[in-house]
């Protein structure tokens, strides 16, 4: 028995060493990427990059519940010994936060030449591409007999009850960005009032845009305020829904477009490979590929051209500047015990 035990322990130790080796070997030609881009989309792009360049990508994904903030907090906590080479974010606010904290490296990617200056940091610490829009996902059966919403303001109109509407927690992700954008566009008082109305109406405030999408797709609510990529997914799944871009009239403010951002981390362990990766992600080919896949609504290289979706004209930095105030308000309004 004693010998058998000894052999069993030796076998287990050998197995563990082998497994650690298998799960952690190789470092010469690699790049470490932290990404908040949905895993189902990012996977294909990363595979393409690996095949094209031969550089192995080690990825850390983030989950929907703490999207972006989890990775940003991790990058901040790793400041003394950076692990990440490239931060590929699915929005811009947290990237600007990292830039202002001095955690990003300046790199002028040749792929970014065709990207409008409006979507690039002046010091080249980050660049944006693609874009998802904030949209209404309207359940066709549920909306019968009611007016289809055309503006963000319609979401809080008396046309719909709170039970018929859903939105993700505005303390996280793109809904948090949307809150800051409305603060920047309308001013603090009007925007705060807007979200207080959402709360007072008893709108379903849920964990993530995908949950909002599911609720609209299954008819649990009539209108879900979500991102266009989630809305497209519902349409592709055959749900009886329509995607509506709000505020597209000639005098309207346009909808919030959230571009993805790419940035190199200061002190990145693999700076050369990081540059190759940034060039690849910012390339027009990858941007179009992500538009094709439905992750982006549009290429920002097309911004302003006829027929493209009208976006809000508020500068990204202004939206960022409103974030602290709006985030604190959202916390206050939506963290109340139900």
């Amino acid at each position, binding site marked *: *028995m004693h010998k*058998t035990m000894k052999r*069993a322990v030796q076998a*287990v130790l050998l197995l*563990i060493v082998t*497994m*650690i080796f*298998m*799960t*952690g070997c190789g470092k010469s030609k*690699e790049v*470490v*990427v*932290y990404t908040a881009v949905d*895993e*189902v989309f990012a996977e294909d792009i990363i595979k393409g990059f690996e095949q094209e360049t031969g550089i*192995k990508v*080690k*990825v*850390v*994904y*983030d*989950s*929907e*519940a*703490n999207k972006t*903030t*989890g990775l*940003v*907090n*991790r990058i*901040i*906590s*790793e400041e*003394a*010994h950076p*692990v*990440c080479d490239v931060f590929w974010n699915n929005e811009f606010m947290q990237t600007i936060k990292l830039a202002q904290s001095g955690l990003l490296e300046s790199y002028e990617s040749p792929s970014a030449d065709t990207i409008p200056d409006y979507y690039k940091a002046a010091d080249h610490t980050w660049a944006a591409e693609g874009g998802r829009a904030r949209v209404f996902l309207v359940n066709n059966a549920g909306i019968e007999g009611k007016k289809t919403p055309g503006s963000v303001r319609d979401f809080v109109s008396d046309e719909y009850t709170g039970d018929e509407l859903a939105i993700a*927690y505005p*303390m*996280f992700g793109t809904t948090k960005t949307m809150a800051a954008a409305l603060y920047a566009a309308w001013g603090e008082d009007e925007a705060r009032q807007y979200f207080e109305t959402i709360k007072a109406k008893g709108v*379903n*405030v*849920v*964990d*993530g845009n*995908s*949950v909002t*999408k*599911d609720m609209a797709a*299954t*008819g*649990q609510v009539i209108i879900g305020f979500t991102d266009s990529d989630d809305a497209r*997914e519902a349409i592709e*799944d055959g749900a009886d829904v329509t995607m509506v871009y709000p505020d597209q009239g000639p005098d309207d403010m346009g909808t919030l477009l959230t571009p993805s951002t790419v940035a190199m981390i200061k002190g990145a362990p693999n700076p050369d490979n990081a540059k190759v990766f940034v060039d690849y992600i910012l390339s027009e080919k990858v941007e179009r590929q992500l538009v094709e896949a439905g992750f982006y609504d549009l290429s920002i290289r097309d911004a302003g051209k006829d027929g493209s979706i009208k976006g809000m004209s508020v500068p990204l930095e202004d939206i960022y500047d409103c974030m602290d105030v709006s985030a604190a308000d959202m*916390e206050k309004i939506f*963290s*109340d*015990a*139900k």
Partner: protein
Amino acid sequence: MWKSKKLLIFPAIYLLMLYLPILGAGDHVNMTDLSFNLRHVGLLANSMKLALLSAVIATALGFFAALYIKTGFMADKWYRYFFILFLPIPFYTYALSWIYFIRMFSIPFPALLKYSLKGFGACLYVEVLEYFPLALLLALIGMESISASDIEAASVYKRLVIVVRDIVLKEIAPYLYAATGLIVILSVTDFSVPSMFQYNTYTLDLFSVYGRTGNVTLVCLKTLPVILLMLVPLSWLLGGMRKFGTVKSGRLKMGIHLNGWMRVVSGLAFAVCIIQILIPVITFIVTTGSVRVFADAFSSVKEELLVSITVSLLAAIFGTIIAFFPAVMIADSDNGVLGTVSMLPVAIPGAIGAMGLLKVVNRSFLHVLGDSVILSAIGCGIKIAPFMVLIICIYRRYTDRHLTEIAWILADKRKKAFLMECRLILPGLMIAFMLAFFMTYAEEGIMLVLMAPGLEAITVKIYNYLHYGASEYVSAFCLISVGVIAVIELTTLAIYRLIVVGMRK
């Protein structure tokens, strides 16, 4: 031997490992951020309401299901413990299976859609199913310590209800207290279930504060009210542990015949046992749809499975190493202070502790650990170590002390006596090891924070895919995960039987 002052180094290491990530983050905190107002009281009340109800229902179901098993034909069968199969299954498996279940039946019956999961009811449903196997496990262990002859003697003179109340329930009360305490603690410190079903709790609020500020110290300080509240269920847990029985039944089947309402209630509880295994398995098989999808899914999660198994194995080893000595000391000394201090960190949400660990590690030469699965394993091991202390402690109390004393008298070397003691509590160590393995396998929050680049765990993968929208691949991932767990559980059971039978011989 266990009273030697030199050995105090081990509980010291254990406490250091548990408290350093929490206290060592060293973030600056403004006193104004530490406000505690009526809103927080409401959130705490929400947390406690969910936790207490989940604990009471799960424990009651566990008790009656165990009673059904221990009085029926399965009482002495090796597979009686297999009903805890889903103990290591991540919570969202239940949520997802329910969502699929409703969707499938909503095609012919659209009215069913309104029963989709949401709010307090959804959290309660998922948590009861999630913690039910834990309650069942403790109730089953408790019932095995009841003397069969006592029950038979009482059954001659007393009615069934009185026998169950005065003997069975009285004997296993410490186990039920421990189960209730443990479930309350696990429920209060979890934010993933309330987050998924839009039910605001204090822990969810802490996570939101962390997301906004990234301040681990602030969040830990804000956890103090939870820690104070958790002293109550902790006292149930530790109080229960101290009274765990030491009499083992000669026969495994309890000599009573269930009838009347008790038979019905026990039967229903056992039905829940079956349902909580069958519904997920059947729905996942149906929604996976084809062997091709299953094969594709398996091919795309091979690496994630390997990562999860490796991290779980390492976490279990690490947890065993740091939990062993404190567990034995607590069991032998009845030291309430050491017991309480050893268990307190369970009130800190795992992901927050993990972020503290990341900060501490990144400030030292140990930052290199972040490049491998080792850091994830340490993070999970730290979270699970108190539970391992609990299990080892229970088994140590079961151990016949005369045998250990004889070992120390007869052994010519201290090492031999020590090894003999280890072998006597080996089954307990194995149970703790496997519990740590499975809890790590099911862990999502800590894995997410400490995951090394390129080394994603299966739970994180499923969670990410699930949030993007339920698909046949998510079903296949869950099915694969359940299958892997079942295979590991069966293998473990076989090894356990081999070793325990070998030891008896």
